[in-house]
């Protein structure tokens, strides 16, 4: 069966009235689940799983696809309006989305976010449709050594955009890396810094850290403003839609973010977090207004949002073609497929063609349904800004703590969120960036395991490890990223000097 025949079969499944209704329901539920701190797409699908046991597997997967895309977009709504990223993939959207909202451009930020999610999602799905077999082969060639180099590149990349706060950023990223070592060592089984707490055996909960650093600290800061009478309610200024200038600045960022998101999303384990960090760093490097980043740059919203949604489609490539989950959400979907007695992998497209193509075509449908649903809802979401400040802040605090508790029904994790709320509050007050801490924590385990596995495979030789072509390319790129900003003034001086002498 070729691609076109497969798509025709898939769309005939997706456009069945029941499946179309499930797509709409999935997108709707996904948006609201994504807005809840701690409840990302993986938790949303896991929550819905018991309700789908009696359903046709294709219909269940169609519902999950809607939830997946909806939750990815939903995370950006709370990031923009309330500075609460629902999950790690939405952290970068907060950096410029919330400042845009504070400047009275909440509607524009939400519009750009919806358009970027659509663009990124479309790029990702087209990539999934056309390039899945080729890219999955490439993904297999990405061994532990290549993963290690990619993680190093991501860490170097994050440090590169810490203008004026390099030392504080290095402290944050180092602390994140150290936190990531808490838990049972995957390779040797050794306990590390667990303090005999079963909740720490699997490591420090990333969700608890993110919700604490952003939501809890934001709510506490907001309450202090109420107490001091300095709370300024956010208001929408001008048109709700993005202005022409904002569109022009964001349009290529969406495309670049989509491409970055798809490529990184395909790599199992890399996921939306790295994709959004890469996209943000790229946009900051390419922008004519790098000084506006962190203060409400439209590119800072568009790039990461597109990357976030494109990575969702990218993560479906290893799931559908190899049976390897590329992200936490696809891991839950893999579990669901296995519950229905379907083994994803190379045989999926031949043995269960209707399911495989049904899922792919439904990603197209979900993407369109989501943008059609999101744009009219912008006006309703903006009304959230009119909620009384104290009620909003207490509500955020309550939802955040309950959301973290709900993930594993653990009060210890809720306490961890509060502890990181304290840390986030002081980091913010003292000018420490929090995003590098999240990246350090996200990458720590993968970085360590990849390096250790790579060295075992290379017989302990560091030299043969860095001689691998992709590794040497990525490490050379790291050197360039570090050196270029320092070499640029020298080059400019050299050019101006030679021009004067002529």
């Amino acid at each position, binding site marked *: 069966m070729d691609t076109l025949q497969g798509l025709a079969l898939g769309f005939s499944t997706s456009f069945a009235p029941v499946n179309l209704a499930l797509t709409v329901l999935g997108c709707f539920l996904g948006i609201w689940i994504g807005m809840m701190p701690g409840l990302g797409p993986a938790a949303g699908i896991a929550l819905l799983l018991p309700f789908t046991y009696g359903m046709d597997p294709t219909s269940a997967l169609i519902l999950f696809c809607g939830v997946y895309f909806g939750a990815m977009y939903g995370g950006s709504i709370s990031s923009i309006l309330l500075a609460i990223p629902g999950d790690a993939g939405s952290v970068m959207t907060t950096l410029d989305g919330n400042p845009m909202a504070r400047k009275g451009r909440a509607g524009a930020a939400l519009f750009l976010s919806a358009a970027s999610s659509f663009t990124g999602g479309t790029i990702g799905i087209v990539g999934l449709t056309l390039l899945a077999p080729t890219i999955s082969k490439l993904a297999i060639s990405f061994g532990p050594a290549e993963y290690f180099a990619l993680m190093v590149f991501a860490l170097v990349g994050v440090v590169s955009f810490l203008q004026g706060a390099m030392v504080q950023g290095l402290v944050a990223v180092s602390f994140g890396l150290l936190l990531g070592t808490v838990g049972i060592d995957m390779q040797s089984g*050794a306990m590390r810094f667990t303090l005999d707490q079963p909740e720490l055996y699997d490591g420090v909960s990333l969700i608890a850290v993110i919700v604490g650093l952003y939501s809890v600290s934001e709510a*506490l800061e907001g309450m202090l403003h109420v107490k001091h009478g300095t709370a300024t309610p956010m208001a929408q200024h001008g048109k709700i839609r993005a202005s022409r200038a904002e569109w022009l600045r964001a349009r290529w960022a969406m495309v670049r973010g989509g491409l970055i998101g798809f490529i990184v999303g395909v790599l199992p384990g890399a996921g939306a977090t790295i994709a959004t960090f890469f996209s943000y760093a790229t946009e900051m490097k390419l922008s004519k207004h790098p000084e506006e980043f962190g203060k409400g740059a439209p590119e800072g919203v568009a790039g990461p949002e597109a990357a976030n949604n494109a990575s969702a489609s990218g993560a479906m490539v290893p799931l559908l073609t190899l049976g390897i989950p590329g992200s936490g959400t696809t891991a839950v979907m893999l579990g669901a497929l296995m519950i229905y007695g379907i083994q994803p992998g190379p045989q999926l497209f031949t043995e269960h063609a209707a399911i495989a193509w049904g899922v792919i075509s439904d990603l197209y449908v979900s993407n369109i349904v989501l943008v059609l649903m999101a744009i009219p809802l912008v006006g309703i979401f903006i009304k959230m800004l009119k909620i009384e400040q104290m009620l909003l802040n207490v509500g955020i605090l309550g939802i955040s703590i309950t959301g973290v508790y709900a993930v594993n029904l653990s009060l210890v994790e809720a306490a961890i969120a509060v502890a990181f709320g*304290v840390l986030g509050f002081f980091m913010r007050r003292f000018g420490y960036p929090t995003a590098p801490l999240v990246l350090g924590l996200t990458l720590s385990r993968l970085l360590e395991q990849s390096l250790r596995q790579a060295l075992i495979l290379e017989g302990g030789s560091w030299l043969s490890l860095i001689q691998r072509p992709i590794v040497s390319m990525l490490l050379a790129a790291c050197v360039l990223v570090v050196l270029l900003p320092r070499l640029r003034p020298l080059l400019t001086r050299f050019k101006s000097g030679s021009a004067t002498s002529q």
Partner: protein
Amino acid sequence: MNGTKTQPHAPHSANWLRLIMPLSFISLAIGFAVQLPGIDATSNGDILGPRWMPTVAVGALLLSGGADLVRTFRINNDPAHAFDRSGLLLAVILLIATAAYVTAMAFLGYALASGIFFIALFYWISSQGLVRSIWKGIGLTAVLVAVFHFVLGISLPTGPLGGFL
């Protein structure tokens, strides 16, 4: 003494407070470093072993924390970087109250602990009067219980309310 202290600090400035952050991070690094020898170093053919990454991360945190301490000392006497400590005491009280709320959930259950905490917050922070604070606190708790317990099916800590929830 660098002889450059010519301008008085802002009324609420207390730049020494800035030292809290680098010192906290350095203390955390030392706390982790002390536990390093306790990690079982059996590597099973693994060249680097389970202590390698924590050692590197502790080292990186100590180095960057040290650099941050030096940076903080440098800006300490600079009025341009005066630190505004207003509201800091209130923030600490609020943070302790939030920590107490999570602890109380284990004994009082979700609904009771949340209700009391939210009412206290509305009354203390926004000074809305006791009756309004009670209504808002109970209303918010009811919404959260409805969403998380009844809609999402999450079992919240029940406490003395037992099977009521």
